[in-house]
């Protein structure tokens, strides 16, 4: 306690006074920027595992029951042919890893940690030690999750939603400790998220620089603030749910087992009560990132700053009352389903406000098509597609037909890959110069963006078609159904596109590591952006700024303002008096 508050206000020394060893600098660092980098590396390395699992799933769907290349070394007894139980494990863990250990660590963990103190003008988080703890607890959760691959019976195989009683009785999926470790890992991750969320909220409320009013905060900070509140209130519900599931599996309780008097539907309620806010936890930071990057490369103020902030608040409130749309076929009262349809349609309104504001920002601008901008534009356009297909399935008559088909799979990937992952790529390219002090390579950036964008669409758009054609999600072999055989060529096409999409990430890996060590040294403000992080050195030293903190005089998006000779006006620029001279 005492250590944390001492760093927060008391004596603040200029940077460079702390000579720390390797362990304190790179492993158990309390510096928010180092913790951000740790979360980034955690997320990116887990993304490789999650991506490979996705390719295994795709191979099985395109060429069912044939040996998966490269898997013969691991699955020696079948020569690389995936068994149904292993297929279940692959898609379960693909989703679990991508959601909990890729998108959340990168967007909320890495960019939350990096952006919040730097963009509100704080020297560090409110509780630096708690911050470090939250990373290492998340790392333990990651290790527990990966350990599940090596236990007898394999990893959890009940889907990332782990519907009971399938997940509650070990005999049903044949996995014992895999599913237990899944529960324990998410429980531990819930604790880590609580620590992180409390830290973010406290920092944003209490630690803003002089003049940084709430409505002068950059929209990415607004989005992370709201994300943190959702994390704080949603994750405990999952935490209690997985605890009950674990008790059902290990202690013999029957919360979710009808045989002992339990109620399987209770799991769905608890899971989706967490699960729907979770969707917005995944997308809100990406929305903030796009709102940050669009004005910079349009050289225009964001269209409707207040509308952007309030629509995010509205999304956060509404996200609590829409969760039933995941359960339309669970046998709920049709009147209740109707209510959830209506709330879900209403949540499209703030999302549409945001979309139109992005379009308003782009309108008439002379856009600079840099690599971060391209990724941000991909976010906006793909989010529109994913959002629109969401409106289809909000209405029960459509949803009951497409429930649990590839249409749903297409929708979630348009939102979570097309939305969150493009947002994450945009953020990585945009803040890389500040985070690591070096520029990324533009040619490699284009070589990464264009294949990703094209093959993303070629992979996921046809899933709408086969979904409406009736292909259900989570099936091992679509060829065993006669009515699906005529569209098997789509599965082959999707898998080839997915393989190309995977290969398209190689330039990113090369670019990331090459730029990390050999990239051009980044100037202070390579994008001529207004927000505070660009006033700190690249990379910012410990405690971010020298002896004095920046003072904020204006909003974050005053581009092409007639007040300035340049087309940008930093938040730290003092207002101009009528006499024409700057104060100070």
């Amino acid at each position: 306690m005492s250590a944390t508050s001492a760093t927060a206000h008391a004596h603040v020394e200029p940077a460079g006074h702390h000579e720390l060893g390797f362990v304190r600098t790179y492993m158990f660092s309390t510096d928010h920027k180092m913790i951000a980098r740790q979360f980034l590396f955690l997320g990116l390395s887990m993304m490789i595992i999650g991506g490979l699992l996705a390719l295994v799933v795709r191979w099985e769907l395109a060429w069912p029951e044939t040996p998966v290349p490269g898997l013969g070394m691991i699955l020696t007894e079948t020569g690389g042919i995936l068994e149904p139980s292993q297929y279940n494990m692959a898609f379960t863990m693909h989703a679990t890893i991508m959601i909990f250990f890729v998108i959340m660590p990168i967007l909320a963990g890495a960019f939350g940690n990096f952006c919040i103190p730097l963009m509100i003008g704080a020297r560090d988080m409110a509780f630096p030690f708690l911050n470090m703890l939250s990373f290492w607890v998340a790392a333990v959760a990651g290790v527990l999750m990966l350990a599940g691959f090596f236990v007898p019976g394999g990893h959890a195989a009940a889907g990332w939603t782990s519907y009971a009683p399938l997940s509650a009785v070990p005999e049903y999926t044949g996995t014992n400790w895999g599913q237990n470790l899944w529960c324990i890992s998410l429980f531990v991750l819930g604790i880590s998220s609580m620590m992180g969320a409390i830290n973010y909220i406290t920092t944003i409320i209490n630690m803003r620089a002089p003049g940084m009013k709430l409505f002068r905060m950059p929209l990415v900070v607004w989005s992370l603030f709201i994300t943190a509140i959702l994390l704080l209130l949603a994750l405990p519900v999952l935490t209690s749910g997985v605890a009950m599931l674990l008790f059902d599996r290990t202690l013999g309780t029957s919360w979710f087992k009808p045989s002992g008097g339990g109620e399987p539907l209770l799991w769905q309620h608890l899971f989706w009560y967490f699960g729907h806010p979770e969707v917005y936890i995944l997308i809100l930071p990406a929305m903030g990132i796009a709102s940050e990057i669009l004005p910079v490369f349009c050289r225009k103020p964001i269209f409707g700053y207040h509308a952007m902030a309030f629509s995010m608040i509205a999304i956060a409130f509404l996200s609590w009352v829409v969760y039933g749309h995941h359960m339309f076929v669970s046998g709920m009262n049709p009147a209740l389903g109707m209510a959830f349809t209506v709330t879900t349609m209403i949540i499209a309104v703030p999302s549409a406000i945001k979309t139109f504001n992005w379009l308003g920002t782009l309108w008439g601008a002379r856009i600079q098509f840099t690599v971060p901008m391209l990724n941000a534009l991909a976010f906006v356009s793909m989010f529109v597609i994913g959002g629109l297909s969401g409106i289809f399935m909000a209405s029960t008559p459509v949803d009951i037909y497409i429930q649990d088909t590839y249409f749903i799979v297409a929708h979630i990937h348009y939102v979570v890959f097309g939305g969150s992952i493009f947002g994450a790529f945009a953020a990585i390219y945009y803040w890389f110069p500040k985070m690591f002090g070096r520029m990324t390579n533009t040619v490699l950036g284009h070589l990464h963006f264009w294949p990703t964008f094209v093959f993303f669409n070629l992979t996921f758009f046809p899933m709408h078609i086969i979904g409406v054609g009736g292909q259900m999600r989570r099936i091992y072999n679509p060829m065993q159904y006669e009515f699906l055989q005529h569209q098997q060529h789509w599965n082959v096409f999707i898998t080839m596109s997915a393989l190309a999409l995977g290969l398209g990430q190689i330039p990113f890996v090369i670019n990331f590591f090459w730029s990390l060590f050999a990239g051009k040294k980044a100037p202070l403000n390579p994008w001529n952006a207004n927000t505070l992080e660009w006033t700190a050195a690249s990379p910012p030293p410990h405690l971010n700024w020298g002896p004095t903190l920046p003072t904020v005089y204006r909003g974050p998006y005053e581009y092409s303002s007639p007040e300035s000779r340049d087309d940008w006006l930093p938040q730290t620029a003092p207002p101009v008096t009528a006499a024409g001279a700057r104060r100070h």
Partner: protein
Amino acid sequence: MTQGLLEAPPKRGPVTDRPNGPVGPPPPPTGGGDGPDREPSPRRPVLDNIQLAVLFLIGGEVMFFAALIAALFVTRLGQPLWPPPHQPRLPVGVTGVNTLVLLASSVMMARAVGALARGEESRLVKRLAATAGLGALFLLVQGYEWARLIGFGLTVSAGTYGATFYTLIGAHAAHVFGALVWLSVTLVLASHGRFAHGRTAPVKACAMFWHFVVGLWPILYVAVYLL
């Protein structure tokens, strides 16, 4: 010279060829979230960082227990009889007295914070110790009753009655234990005079969490034991 939204900004990249100096008075604030033009002042937070953090921690904990209580009600609504027949009854009387013990600890905690506000350090330490003692007594009685119930055959796997009881009450007991550890640390720090010079926030934060844990108990007592 204010730019319309439909006009393109004049030039890409930093513009250097504009006339030096500003053009007329500053324009009214546009979409940038700008407020009235005044000199920014340093922030004076209403609540100290740690108190604010505990407030939000309580928010998260409320959701955690709300999920558990909701699960309890869903479970018992699925049962024809509650409590189920042939199951030991919960010790309502002893636990009722124990509830008073826990509530007394909260009163004692409030008095400790009062002593802190008046700067009476020795009273602060004594009252914190009394709070911790009452909390520990509560946990001991709970543990004794648990042991008796298990002896009577109410186990966690004996049916939904035992499962709901042990999960909810166990979750609360874990929180009392955690709060007790925190309180003990605060007590040790207080006895070393660490809160002597107006640094009251850590004690107040600890008190907030203690009051939360105590305030949660009557709700659980009614939901689990009485209803």
